[in-house]
């Protein structure tokens, strides 16, 4: 493999994938709206712009598509434009450019209808039942990506679950920010078991997806990726807080109260057109109160991949990062 386009390389995961591919000798081009600072061949622009997609994918053998609009709330159309239309344009462009592999980085939420996921497999993406505009748009994107799988154009969807690590602007910094503000609370005691993925493992899994995309049992399929070490929400929030030198959450509220707060906050944010995200949403309350962990056997076997960094090691690295 000589030339790979990585979209969304300004994020922690995209940057990690771009660096990992470059490290092993691939010619990596990155595409995102802001400069990545990676020192790689770079196209700046909106992935949802067909012209941008065409120019970015020129002469590439493979595409790793991470660029997406990620948010708890927002206008459905905006999610559709970036996540669904963007994916469609990129696939068309990649196929036209003669690329042979396409890794669609997706999310386990595309197949999650809200019930507890306990040792679940990678269910079929379902835009009709996925929760929230982000998950719905990612579900539609994954379906159209996998539908494009064809001889000579191997498509695989990788769904890393809750990726975290040093430099994470999403999960970790929000939790730490709340812990510092003393506003970190548990829902129902934080007893739901949840899978997470340390950044390096997610990167490795996406690279493995790229490597094995043409394999039988891989192309045209979706794979959930996690550390395979589900932990309670209480433990995860406490350890993330502790890594930043903050105490863990001391308070807990009942799920109905949290869900009600979420509903209220969403309404207030909508009505007052406040910028940013509300501190609680119904979706978030549900995510924090419901188990979601996954059966990793198929993923590990098909991708010939296993997580190399344990949660314990991950927390050590996070602590070093946050205190250093």
């Amino acid at each position: 493999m000589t030339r790979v386009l990585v979209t969304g390389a300004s994020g922690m995961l995209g940057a990690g994938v771009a660096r990992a591919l470059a490290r092993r000798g691939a010619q990596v081009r990155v595409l995102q709206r802001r400069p990545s600072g990676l020192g790689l061949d770079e196209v700046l622009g909106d992935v949802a712009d067909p012209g941008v997609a065409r120019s970015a994918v020129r002469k590439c053998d493979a595409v790793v598509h991470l660029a997406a609009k990620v948010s708890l709330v927002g206008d459905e159309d905006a999610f559709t434009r970036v996540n669904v239309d963007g994916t469609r344009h990129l696939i068309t462009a990649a196929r036209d450019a003669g690329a042979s592999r396409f890794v669609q980085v997706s999310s386990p939420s595309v197949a999650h209808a809200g019930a507890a996921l306990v040792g679940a497999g990678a269910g079929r993406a379902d835009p009709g039942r996925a929760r929230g505009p982000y998950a719905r748009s990612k579900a539609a994107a994954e379906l159209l990506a996998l539908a494009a799988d064809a001889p000579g154009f191997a498509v695989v969807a990788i769904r890393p679950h809750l990726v975290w690590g040093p430099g994470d602007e999403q999960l970790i910094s929000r939790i730490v920010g709340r812990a510092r503000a003393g506003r970190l609370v548990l829902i129902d005691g934080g007893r739901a078991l949840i899978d997470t993925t340390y950044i390096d493992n997610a990167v490795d899994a996406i690279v493995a997806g790229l490597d094995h995309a043409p394999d039988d049992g891989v192309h045209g399929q979706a794979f959930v990726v996690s550390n395979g070490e589900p932990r309670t929400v209480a433990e995860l929030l406490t350890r993330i807080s502790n890594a930043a030198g903050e105490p863990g959450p001391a308070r807990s509220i009942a799920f109905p109260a949290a869900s009600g707060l979420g509903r209220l906050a969403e309404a207030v944010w909508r009505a007052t057109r406040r910028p940013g995200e509300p501190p609680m949403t119904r979706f978030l309350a549900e995510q924090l109160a419901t188990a979601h962990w996954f059966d990793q056997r198929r993923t590990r076997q098909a991708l010939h991949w296993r997580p190399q960094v344990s949660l314990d090691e991950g927390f050590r690295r996070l602590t070093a990062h946050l205190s250093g």
Partner: protein
Amino acid sequence: MVAPARLPPPLLGLQASWSRLIEAPDDDGTPRTWHVLDAGAAEPDVTLLCVHGNPTWSYLWRGLLARAGQADARFRVIAVDQLEMGFSERTGRSRRLADRIDDLGRLTDALALSGPVVTVAHDWGGPISLGWAQRHRALLAGVVLCNTAVHQPAGAPAPAVIRAARLPGVLPLVTERTRAFIAGTTALSGRRMGAETAAAFAAPYASARRRAGIRAFVADIPLRTSHPSAACLDEVAARLSDFADVPALLLWGPGDPVFSDLYLRDLRARLPHADVHRYEGARHLVTEDAPQALDDLLAWIRARVPLARDQRVAGAEGPGTDGIDRGQRGLPTGRRLWHELERRAAESPEGAAIVSMRTDGRASQVTWAELLALVDGLAGGLAAEGIRPGDRVSVLIPPSPALVAAIYACWRIGAAAIVTDAGLGVRGMRRAIRGAHPDHVIAVPAGLALARTLRIPGRRIRAGDLPRIARASSGPLPDQPPADTEAVIAFTSGATGPAKGVVYRHWQVERTRDVIARHYQVTEADALIAAFAPWAVLGPALGIASAIPAMDVTRPRTLRASALARAAAAVGGTLLWSSPAALANVIRTQGELDDAGRAALARVRIAMFAGAPVPSGALARAASIFPAASIRTPYGMTEALPLTDVTSQEIADAGRGNGVLVGAPIAGVEVGICSLDAQGDPTGERTAQPMASGEILVRCDHLRDGYDALWATTHRASADGWHRTGDVGHIDAKGRLWLEGRLAHVITTEDGPCTPVGIEQRAMELDWVEAAAAVGVGPPGCQQVVVVVTGVSGRGPLVDVPRTLSLRAHVEAAGLPAPAAVLRRDDLPVDIRHNAKVDRTALARWADRILAGVAR
């Protein structure tokens, strides 16, 4: 009404390819069309001819058809819809039993059915299939009957449901004009039958006119001898004696309000060689309530039925035995169970045989001469009361000389004692005793009241009348029963599923006695302190005096140190058999021992604690209470004991390991390990290779005979004479067995199966953990380990994060899988009998619920 046969619409679990319409002539030569389901091998080893009852149809057998449809199946299933029923033709005629038997014969002629054939039938399909079988002996290879009857047992009324349905005016109303009979039948299912399945059962009976056959079928049940079908049914019943050489299987749902256990008993009497499996909890539609019955049925055919091309599996035997391979069957020992009793009565008639301590501190004692006189007197007296060889007697008497005498008297006359203890719980006792179906109940007043409450069958004999019965007896003793006679039906603790009845024959109890005598080097100088109820019975067989301490036998943890010491002093006890729960309380109350008590306990040379694991701390403290004793924690089970033995010293010397050290096999016992697959099932080869974890298999001469009325359970538990214990463990380099838990409690992680006990032991090494249980959450094959502990206070079910991390690190450091979470509880659910076996299955369900968070 007249309507042609037709094919069923698409229905849950039914494949269109199975359905065929077959034409066969009626008795007057009119062609009639049948709907049959037909699937399986083109050249089958055996054909199953399945006959439904009323008001079901061939849909009842869809599970068998699905199994026959599998690629490697070597059998064929033909399930018929009887005329006027299901999707077969509505001829407008009422058909009687004899007609239906004729009809079926004409159909199988039209099908050119060739042998061998096993008939499979349910409900009123039973007599029809048997009638067919009697006329097709050349084809017949076996008969299978599910909840049916061929005869109304004398003295018992017909099922109330049937009687009610037959009342004038009621019959057409419930069977024809409304769907009541159909809805009632599917509602009789013990499991909540899915609406779609219930609808499928009702599908062929949508209109009153299509239900005429149901009414006629009910009307055809001969409740009186004058009924037109009575003679035919009687003939079918009478000719069952011709089937003595035909393998027979009875699959039964004991919760059936129509065909109750009474009818099972009647059928067993007519087919004494039949194999029986009762599915506890299943009702009328036994194959719906217990779908595993279909797999059991096929396993039975493989094991028991001579097939075409002689494809029988090794180990299959003809009728007369139950097809269970027990390997080399031991021979009678020649020394019957009452042998030592007779010898001691002759040699030391005035010596104490049994001393029973009372809570007021006094003791009642019987001498050897008195005990023998009582046993012999009762043997004659109970025979005079109507107890026959081969009868079963439920003995509901607390441990006492009366209990011992009643059991030995039963043995002496060839009756089997059903031995239950309150440790099963009331529900467990009800299931156990009703399942064993006693012919007689000998009980103290509380036992009689219980028997009444639990509606236990059998003639009642009051324990208080035993002395009178013994005295009234005259004449010579009955002949000694053969050594192959059933002696005992004892029960497993029910810690993993309903308690199972375990059958021992005389020679098997004799072997158990001899193994104990040999292994513990029992001599006349010994005396037994029987602090664990079942052991009270073995003293006379061993020829040693026994003392029964004052305690609530139903609650072993009520045994106090002082009560134990008084019992020891009463007989000069040298052997103590007790339970771990009792030991815990003896340790707790040891402060109340006086010098005499301490001296009495210092005479104990072997103190044995069995039935459940004993914490190492308790063993160390036991050493100070029994200073002269070798303290043992042997391994055994209701099915065979003892199997291995170990001293507390050996356990201390062995140190840490994955599991509990239970020692080397005792002489005559072989232990093997059967490795587990990724799903935790013991599918591997048997091995004696050190350190390999798997299910523990044992082979010995003092093994149980089988499980009572649980043919499939016995079959699964038996292989080449080995018994599958359902326990998991490994053998170490010194040939010693380590127990790692129950097979049912194995946790199947992504990295393979793992056993709970080692994880629990490591957890309990932490000073803040009182007790721990390791369970798996999530689907088999990718489960996560969760440890549940007691001894931690706090809010909510989660143990705090620092403790969680320390426990996880401690377990991981021992090379065991890291628990995903650590939960806390005030106590762990344990069984009643031992007060020690943790119900990890229930605990796993609880943990699953907690850790799933908000369940929707």
